[in-house]
């Protein structure tokens, strides 16, 4: 049951990281000179989103 819950929870995090990558690649394609900064912001944003997915993972394990 817990594994199913984690699967459901990770949908949101997956969508969020996908959206972040979408925005970052779009920005890089429009303005290649912004690549470095866009990549940093992308890593930051995916770290935030990833944390939400990991909360689900850890809750599955410890509860």
């Amino acid at each position, binding site marked *: 049951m817990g594994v199913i819950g984690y699967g459901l929870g990770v949908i949101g995090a997956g969508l969020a990281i996908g959206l972040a990558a979408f925005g970052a690649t779009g920005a890089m394609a429009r303005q290649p000179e912004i690549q470095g900064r866009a990549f940093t912001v992308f*890593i*930051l944003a995916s*770290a*935030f989103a*990833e*944390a939400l997915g*990991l*909360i689900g*993972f*850890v809750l599955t*394990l*410890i509860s």
Partner: protein
Amino acid sequence: MDAFAALPEEINHLVAEFSSAPVAGDLTVGLTQYSFWLLVAAVVFAVVMAVFVKKQTLVPRGVFVNGVEYLIEYVQNDVAKGVVGTGWRRHFPFLATIFLFILINNFIGLIPGCKPGTGAIGCTAALALVTFVYFVYFGCKKHGVIGYLKSLAPAGVAFPMNVFVWVIEVFSLLLRPITLAIRLFCNMFAGHIVMGSFSIMAAIFAEPLLEHFSAMNAVGALPSLAWLAILLIIYAVELIVAFVQAYVFTVLAAVYIQIAEAEGH
């Protein structure tokens, strides 16, 4: 397929291994394996800084001095100057300490056989609590206690909405240390569980080969090569995560300090 039969038990064993267990004393007074590695990290941190201060010359020489200086300048320019803005000089020591401490903890956890001090919820909660007290203290110092409480609600909102927004802002203020603590803890804990599971996978398939060498067992051990490759990739990702999580914690601390000190938030 009998390789997978042993998997749930191994995973349970792995998770049990990662929960805090006392190595000396008991859970109330004593050392858990996490606090032991936390102490190790603190000692490493102190030694690195002492050596760095001693070796410092006008023109930095060598990989070590330049490397530490690069990290410190990174915090100074990217986090302190970039996020806190004016008055960054006062907050720079705090931010640099937090960044380097978490970084050293995370990297020590990546050495096989060691555990990250930040992989226990108690440690990250303490770090987050220190950050919380720090930015509330500086907010109160800047605006006064009443002024700080008032500044939580944005200026220029009409009366009844004002109170409503203030309540929401107080909730978000109280949630900040919790999210800080849980983000760091979950990243370190989950990252190590994932690495552990993949090494278990690699070991399970290779086990028959180690016990008894035959062509059948050699073919059966082939999947463990794939698991090993994935393990290496995950390890590389964890190297990035160790750095990014230290960076995220520091940036968020800087953002909260900046918000607390901002005029007319």
